[in-house]
């Protein structure tokens, strides 16, 4: 028996129903603390066994970086996936939910709870975005607007799912809002939870605003977005710059960024060995439904259109940072901040080295190594703004090891619940 679109919309919307956030734990019995409910001290980080992960995503189906990131996380056996939280970004929340639930059914992983999150960014709107593009001109290499794409439907429109999804899932989302789930999961597992945030950072910003006490309790946050070389204006950030700024400025114990620059180094259509593409290897070697997804949405389209462009492996790299961070061979602590002035630079990212005082002064020549990372390091002389956050910016990746990890995860037997 299949789910109708109307029934599906009902169940997704029901997830927005309210539920209480558990009480903030009360601190030591000082008179001040007794007077109020106050923040508890951070528990010591403790990592035992599998890494606990909250997977926050703007799942754009049927295929692509969001789906492949999801498949990697489902296939990895060193992760404990506490839940999937969705946020409007690449697509509208309800359509993303349709793909996510059905993918979990097809993968036999219906035990993973899925939570609906923010349906809109904090302030950005489709109409204002289009006006900004007209007013200031487009200046991005890939003018992707996700849910705000001109041709995209409304937030309540569920388009049918193509093969191999074929129908809407019988699986239902949870009744709790994504932000509340994040708060609860982090408080229940202090120092242990990694938040993978593969879409706009709206859900994480909401969780932080409601419960600032979770920030020091998180083990690591991994995000995708920002850039300094390919372009500075990355979708996940400029879809909701205010949320990105809020999240980037918080004092997380560890905050890792996959920039568009490093993501651009590897594309889904790349070869793993001379003459052999990763997608071909996977379509041939994987089990269903992974093999079907790659065959229908990558190998066959490429056969019909040999000049087909494949996307950078952005979310796949985030998944790698969670599953096996050693594939990254270089990273640097940097200050990162986001422009939220609604002008031509709305959503732009800005970087400063942690040791910005040591960057050679204007009189010295700029080294090739500096140029590789920064357009012009001289812009950093005055340092970051006062509230900028420090992030672990991933800068180099072992291409062979990353590709092998990716293909191995895709072709190993489908992981059971």
């Amino acid at each position: 028996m299949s789910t109708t679109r109307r029934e599906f919309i009902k169940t997704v919307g029901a997830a927005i129903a309210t539920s209480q956030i558990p009480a903030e734990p009360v601190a030591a019995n000082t008179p001040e603390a007794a007077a109020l409910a106050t923040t508890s001290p951070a528990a010591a980080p403790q990592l035992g066994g599998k890494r606990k992960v909250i997977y926050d995503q703007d799942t754009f189906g049927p295929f692509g970086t969001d789906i492949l990131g999801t498949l990697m996380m489902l296939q990895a056996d060193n992760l404990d996936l506490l839940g999937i939280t969705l946020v409007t970004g690449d697509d509208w929340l309800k359509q993303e939910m349709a793909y996510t639930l059905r993918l979990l059914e097809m993968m036999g992983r219906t035990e993973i709870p899925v939570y609906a999150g923010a349906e809109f960014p904090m302030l950005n709107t489709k109409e204002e975005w289009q006006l900004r593009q007209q007013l200031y001109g487009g200046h991005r290499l890939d003018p992707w607007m996700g849910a705000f794409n001109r041709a995209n439907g409304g937030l309540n429109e569920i388009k049918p799912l193509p093969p191999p999804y074929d129908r809407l899932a019988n699986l239902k989302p949870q009744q709790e809002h994504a932000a509340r789930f994040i708060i609860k999961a982090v408080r229940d597992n202090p120092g242990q939870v990694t938040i993978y945030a593969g879409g706009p950072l709206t859900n994480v910003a909401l969780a932080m605003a409601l419960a600032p006490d979770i920030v020091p309790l998180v083990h690591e946050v991994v995000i995708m977005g920002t850039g300094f070389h390919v372009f500075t204006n990355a979708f996940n950030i400029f879809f909701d710059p205010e949320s990105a700024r809020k999240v980037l400025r918080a004092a997380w114990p560890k905050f890792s960024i996959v920039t568009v620059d490093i993501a651009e180094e590897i594309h889904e259509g790349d070869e793993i060995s001379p003459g052999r593409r990763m997608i071909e290897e996977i379509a041939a070697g994987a089990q269903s439904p992974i093999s079907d997804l790659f065959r229908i949405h990558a190998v066959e389209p490429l056969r019909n259109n040999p000049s087909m462009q494949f996307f950078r492996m952005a979310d796949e790299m985030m998944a790698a940072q969670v599953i096996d961070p050693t594939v990254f061979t270089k990273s640097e602590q940097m200050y990162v901040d986001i422009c939220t002035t609604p002008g031509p630079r709305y959503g732009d990212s800005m970087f400063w080295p942690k040791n910005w005082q040591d960057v050679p002064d204007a009189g010295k020549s700029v080294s090739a190594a500096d140029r590789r990372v920064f357009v012009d390091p001289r812009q950093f002389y005055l340092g970051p703004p006062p509230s900028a956050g420090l992030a672990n910016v991933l800068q180099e990746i072992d291409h062979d090891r990353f590709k092998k990890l990716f293909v191995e995860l895709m072709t190993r037997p489908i992981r059971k619940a």
Partner: protein
Amino acid sequence: MTTPSDMLAHSAMLSPVQQNPTPSGGKKKLIYDQDHRGPLSTDTVATLMLLQADNIDLLGICTVSCDMWAKQETAYALRLLELMGRTEVPVFMGAQEPLLNTKAEAQMRYQMFGSRSLGNEGYLGAFAKDAAGRDELAPLPPPYNRFAQIKAQPEPAADFIIRTIRANPNQVTMYCGGPMTNLALAAMLAPDIVPITKEVIFMGGGLHHSTSSVNVYFDAEAAKIGFRAGWPKFTLVTTDLAEQVHMQDDGKVDAIVERAHSPIADLFREYEQKPQRANPQRRSFRMPDEMMAAHVIDPSIFTGYDDMFIDIVTHNDGHYGDTSFWDADWKNKGGELSGQNAPSLKAGRVQVLNGVDKKRFRELFTDLMTRPINRSK
């Protein structure tokens, strides 16, 4: 394709299970969201008015950082309820920080652009240079004397707002006497509450006296979300209106100190009468929050409102938090420019209160402050 009935099914589903409205004996259901500055301020006085009014069902008090940090404000609110014998009113601590604004940036904007960027007022509340830290809790002076025995509720203010509006569709008035941070969070988490909120009333911004005020420029992003959300009714008290009446006008304070009951008399003696006698040049503050409270208690004392559009500047510059107003009837006004004075694309619709019957306001205010302490629920 999604049909219109699909959409309807969706929106109907978003409304929670409709509970029977709690009988409130005709009282107005109110969520009171406030940056509750103690010991006595326009915030506290408005709280006293609402506690004293017998036609208000005060569902809960929410606090939000601005005039002070939320923890300190919560301490004042809890103890005030004890002093007033109204410990049944639940208190919810809300947002401790604005959505994006920070103290360092507020200070730098002030230096860089001057107080113009701060609504001509230069008042920064919890972001003032010498203000206490976010988690510091200063002792409460007389007549508060000590921290309250009663506790704040564990639920965040935004969750309380969502839960309460859903349980009382079309019945709850939201009083936002501080920045709209809690309201913005509630609307983001649960957009379905917007059409079922009876009214939002907010104080901030202006066209003449100043183009912004601390409730807006402390959290301009929250103000933008709050104004744009599309509430069925949004009533605004501007600084222009609030400036028409000041606390020390017409001998109100002396009358209250003389005739009010404890603790109201004590508060006004200590924090209005004594400072004024010590320094006759002291300029007492305008009465913005008292006007909001008056509007909730008896809207008929206001002479009218202008139907307008409003939007907020969130550029991180000298205009951060500035308000822009447009006449709602812009299409038919402006002579040759008719049709050109359009509001911004996403501007919110507000009813800007444009006048108050000063005599009736004074009478209402003095009556509420001097009547026997209302100890009933």
